[in-house]
């Protein structure tokens, strides 16, 4: 039997080409994902391998930052000279290094930030007796010694076109300042290797600008020979026990932490990539199953003969499965090779986008190879299982009977019943989820895949009426070829369904995401317009806080009528953690619009709290309720609820006057500054604000559109990546169309010959095949788009907590584009089969019996 399998495989290799390609693409995607993430992981580890080599223990203060993301209390306890001295005096300590480090941006000559904002950093230069700092060897000039002097890493200096002696603008979270470049150094710092910039300041200036005078962000401690890091840690810990916030870690712990972080990041990247590979493979299953069904239909007689001469059912099944396993193995091997190329391509592609991405030689682990081969074989065998079982059911008597066997209406009936049950269940669950107030996701999560699977099962029965709808138009536009195309498209519902289903999957996902994205963007835009009166919002592009002086500076700019800082702190409300935002009591009503459901917004001016309706419900609060606020420093403030406003995406659920916040948090985190101008969001106003804030390249000034885009940009960025990924699965689906059409053309040779004899010219034959291909593709696309829209509608309903004003918006233009693209793709997929069909030799096909 296995010899039969092998012979069959070789006999049908042409017809298996598309199937093999589909498996290859799917497994190549898997292989590419694995190779790429292994490679990135390895490269990142390599670049970090030498970090922490020159220290034993590190004490750090995560809150020591002028602008960082720590929205709590600013350090009242600090790491300072005294701490350093105490640690240096410990018996096990060989040396210490007190580090000041934070975000610092470097502007190029066009006042644009060099490198990405999140990896623009600064540190203090610690000269030894000779005036050098061994950590930062200077290749030109000397290290910074006084205020106004800096040194830059070589890459950044080159990017900016700076030479020693040049004036360089650097910026933290306030006005950019002019400094003099005194030196250029090299460093093995992995962040710098990864495309970031590093600015060195003298210690006093660094403290002055980044922290507070005398304060350090971390202290690196090196042990005396013979003292273990662990032992040293135990000596150091009591010295810094005066604040719980400080961490004391050995180099080993730091390295572990770092490698866990790297591993987690590459792992999650790999997961995303593999999820898409899985979708492609799932689409591939349809093609493989379809191919085997068609091959077995073509081989009915042969298989029946085998059964007649005594082959057992199990043997027939096994021979088909063996054939599948072989194809799977061969294709997956190809997929592995292609996948290594894909991995290299991904690395190259991302490298060209992000210069600093760590790169290294490709890592193809044995695990990758084994996984890819196993996945290829398994997926192919699983796909061929149903056709194989069906093959074993062929009665031996079929060897004697003649003609094509008609599609069994019975099999379809069972299929339809199962499909209907699953579809109704799925759609019902989604419905339940949409109408239910709580646990929406609990219903929609299982409902969505159920509905999708149900519809895929029902596709054969849907295909006939759906495609018939297109009938009149096809006949009117394309005459007889159009009519024949429609009839051919519905003649084998299973085959059409499998082909269209593959397309439907991709389009379901693409449509769902497009609809969700459009709806989110729409809701955000409306929410910004409804709740923001301000013309402009000023913020740091890296998510850090603005310097305390920024709001006041802006207020002085010409054309500005009102200004309010939006401050933020992590606090507890009646014991539950919440983000609390503050606004200036005098100006907020000119900058934000609150729709009050109870009380008055003016209560803010009396030092009362405003809360949103969500919080009011969850905490059982109403106007006049007492509210206990636990400040980040641990103190408590008793507040009264002065009003309740409708949930608002732009503001946190609890608002206070800035004066209430600063009472316990003198230098609060300033998220952004809202500005209203005399003449709206004019270019002049933007320029005036940019000038007033010292032209800091990290500060962005957004108008309302910009504010909305800022919220939806994450969605959009994710979407464009997803489109690319889903493009792969659509590509696999297109292979399926080519496959089905080629097989159909092969099977219908005699018909095509007859049509040619009766006077259908080659153009007509080609058109017939291409139209069938387009009809099937468009059918799949329409089903996918309908299902995708439905799922998106359900998903949008789950977002109503975060975006209360969200409603489903169908992007008609995009959907039409998908439809037209599907038709065009169908025609393209039909090109080759159509050429085959047009080349049919009339006499040959008439004589074939």
């Amino acid at each position, binding site marked *: 039997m296995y010899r039969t399998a092998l012979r069959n495989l070789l006999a049908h290799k042409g017809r298996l080409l598309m199937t093999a390609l589909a498996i290859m693409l799917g497994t190549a995607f898997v292989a590419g994902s694995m190779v790429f993430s292994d490679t990135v992981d390895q490269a990142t580890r390599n670049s970090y391998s030498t970090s922490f080599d020159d220290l034993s223990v590190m004490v750090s203060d995560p809150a020591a930052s002028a602008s960082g993301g720590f929205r709590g209390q600013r350090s009242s306890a600090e790491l300072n000279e005294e701490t350093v001295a105490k640690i240096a005096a410990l018996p096990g300590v060989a040396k210490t290094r007190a580090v000041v480090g934070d975000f610092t941006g470097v502007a190029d000559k066009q006042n644009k930030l060099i490198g990405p904002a999140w990896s623009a950093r600064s540190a203090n230069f610690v000269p030894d007796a000779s005036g050098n700092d061994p950590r930062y060897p200077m290749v030109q000039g000397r290290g910074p010694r006084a205020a106004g002097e800096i040194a830059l890493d070589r890459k950044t200096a080159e990017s900016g076109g700076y030479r020693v002696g040049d004036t360089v603008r650097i910026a933290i979270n306030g006005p950019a300042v002019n400094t003099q470049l005194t030196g250029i150094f090299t460093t093995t710092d992995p962040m710098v290797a990864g495309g970031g910039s590093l600015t060195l300041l003298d210690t006093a200036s660094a403290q002055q600008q980044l922290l507070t005078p005398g304060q350090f962000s971390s202290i690196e401690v090196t042990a005396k020979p013979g003292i273990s890091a662990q032992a040293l840690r135990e000596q150091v810990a009591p010295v810094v026990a005066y604040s719980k916030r400080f961490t004391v870690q050995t180099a080993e712990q730091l390295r572990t932490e770092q490698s866990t972080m790297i591993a987690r990041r590459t792992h999650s990247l790999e997961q995303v990539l593999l999820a898409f590979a899985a979708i492609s493979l799932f689409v591939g299953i349809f093609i493989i199953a379809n191919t085997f069904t068609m091959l077995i239909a073509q081989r009915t007689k042969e298989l029946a003969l085998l059964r007649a001469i005594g082959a057992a059912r199990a043997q027939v099944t096994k021979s088909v499965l063996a054939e599948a396993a072989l194809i799977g193995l061969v294709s997956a091997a190809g997929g592995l090779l292609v996948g290594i190329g894909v991995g290299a391509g991904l690395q190259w592609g991302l490298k060209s986008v992000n210069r600093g991405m760590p790169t290294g030689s490709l890592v193809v682990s044995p695990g990758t190879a084994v996984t890819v081969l196993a996945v290829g074989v398994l997926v192919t065998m699983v796909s061929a299982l149903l056709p194989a079982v069906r093959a074993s059911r062929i009665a031996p008597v079929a060897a004697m009977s003649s003609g094509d066997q008609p599609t069994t209406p019975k099999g379809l009936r069972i299929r339809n019943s199962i499909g209907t049950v699953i579809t109704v269940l799925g759609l019902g669950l989604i419905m339940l989820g949409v109408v239910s107030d709580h646990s929406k996701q609990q219903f929609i999560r299982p409902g969505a895949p159920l509905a999708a699977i149900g519809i895929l099962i029902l596709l054969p029965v849907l295909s006939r009426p759906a495609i018939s709808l297109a009938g009149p138009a096809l006949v009117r536009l394309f005459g007889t070829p159009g009519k024949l195309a429609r009839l051919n498209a519905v003649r084998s519902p299973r085959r059409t369904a499998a082909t269209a289903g593959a397309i439907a999957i991709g389009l379901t996902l693409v449509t769902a995401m497009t609809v969700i994205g459009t709806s989110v963007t729409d809701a955000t835009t409306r929410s910004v317009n409804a709740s923001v009166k301000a013309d402009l919002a000023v913020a740091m592009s890296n998510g850090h806080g603005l310097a305390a002086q920024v709001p006041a500076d802006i207020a002085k700019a010409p054309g500005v009528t009102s200004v309010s800082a939006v401050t933020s702190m992590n606090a507890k409300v009646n014991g539950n953690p919440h983000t609390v935002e503050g606004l200036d009591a005098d100006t907020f009503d000119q900058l934000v619009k609150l729709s009050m459901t109870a009380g008055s917004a003016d209560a803010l001016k009396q030092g009362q709290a405003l809360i949103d309706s969500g919080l009011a419900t969850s905490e059982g609060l109403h106007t006049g309720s007492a509210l206990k606020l636990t400040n980040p420093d641990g103190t408590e403030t008793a507040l009264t609820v002065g009003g309740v406003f409708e949930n608002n995406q732009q503001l946190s659920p609890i608002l206070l006057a800035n004066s209430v916040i600063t009472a316990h948090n003198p230098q609060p985190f300033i998220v952004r500054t809202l500005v209203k101008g005399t003449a709206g969001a004019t270019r002049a106003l933007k320029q005036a604000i940019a000038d007033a804030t010292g032209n800091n390249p990290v500060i962005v000034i957004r108008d309302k559109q910009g504010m909305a885009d800022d919220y939806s940009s994450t969605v959009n960025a994710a979407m464009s990546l997803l489109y690319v990924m889903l493009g792969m699965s659509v590509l696999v689906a297109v292979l399926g169309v080519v496959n089905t059409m080629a097989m159909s053309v092969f099977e219908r040779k005699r018909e095509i010959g007859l*049509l*040619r004899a009766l006077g259908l010219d080659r153009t007509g034959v080609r058109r017939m095949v291409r139209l069938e291909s387009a009809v099937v593709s468009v059918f799949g696309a329409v089903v996918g788009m309908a299902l995708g829209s439905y799922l998106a509608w359900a998903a949008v309903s789950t977002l109503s907590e975060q975006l209360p004003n969200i409603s489903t918006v169908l992007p008609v233009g995009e959907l039409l584009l998908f439809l037209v693209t599907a038709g065009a793709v169908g025609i393209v997929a039909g090109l080759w089969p159509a050429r085959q069909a047009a080349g049919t030799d009339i006499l040959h096909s008439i004589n074939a019996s």
Partner: protein
Amino acid sequence: MSTASAILRSVTPGGPSGIAASAREVTKAYGVGETRVTALNRVDVDIHRGQFTAIMGPSGSGKSTLMHCLAGLDTVSTGHIRIGDTEITDLNDKQLTQLRRDKIGFIFQAFNLLPTLNAIENITLPMDIAGRKADQAWLDQVVSTVGLADRLKHRPAQLSGGQQQRVAVARALASRPEIIFGDEPTGNLDSRSGAEVLDFLRRSVNELQQTIVMVTHDPNAASYADRVLFLADGRIVDEMHNPTADAVLDRMRRFDGKRTS
């Protein structure tokens, strides 16, 4: 049977009225070198308009090849073929296709119909392809002649073999082609269904002045024709007018005798 067909034929009005198709010096060879087979060897033949011509001969004698060449389904190696006034030997594929569509009807031995179309759609298919409207009165006449009026909405799978061949005959007649070619159109039918189909062909010649060329192995089928051409080894070796089944059988026996000798 032969009596019935003789009576039918006797109603044929007048004699031959012009030439519907002709072959001049037609040679058709397959393959090259040692495997070269000459299927047709300098064949000259005229097919008369309004006549029912049968082509007979031993297996491999070139009957199908001759028919395919006459019908523009195959190209000749040398020589000329005319359909009506058209010299078809130098037409390109597109022109040949159009010629088949507009001037020629076909009845094949099997697989004559598209399984996706019902009977009437199959009958009008050549006209649909051409984008021509069928002449409804004529169509009705053809349909009633072949006795399919109550089967028009049936798919081929729902028709018997004889009914399928009748649909094929109706299709060949419906577009009023200049000439109909049939390659063993009754080859797959039992004698009764075969007789039905042959009756229709005969009547279409008698009543509709249709020109028909039919390849057959069956002397009985040949007896329905006005004229029988005998082919052997790619040459026309004999012909017979107003044949009877017995006379044809006799003539065929002589081929067999020659072969065994």
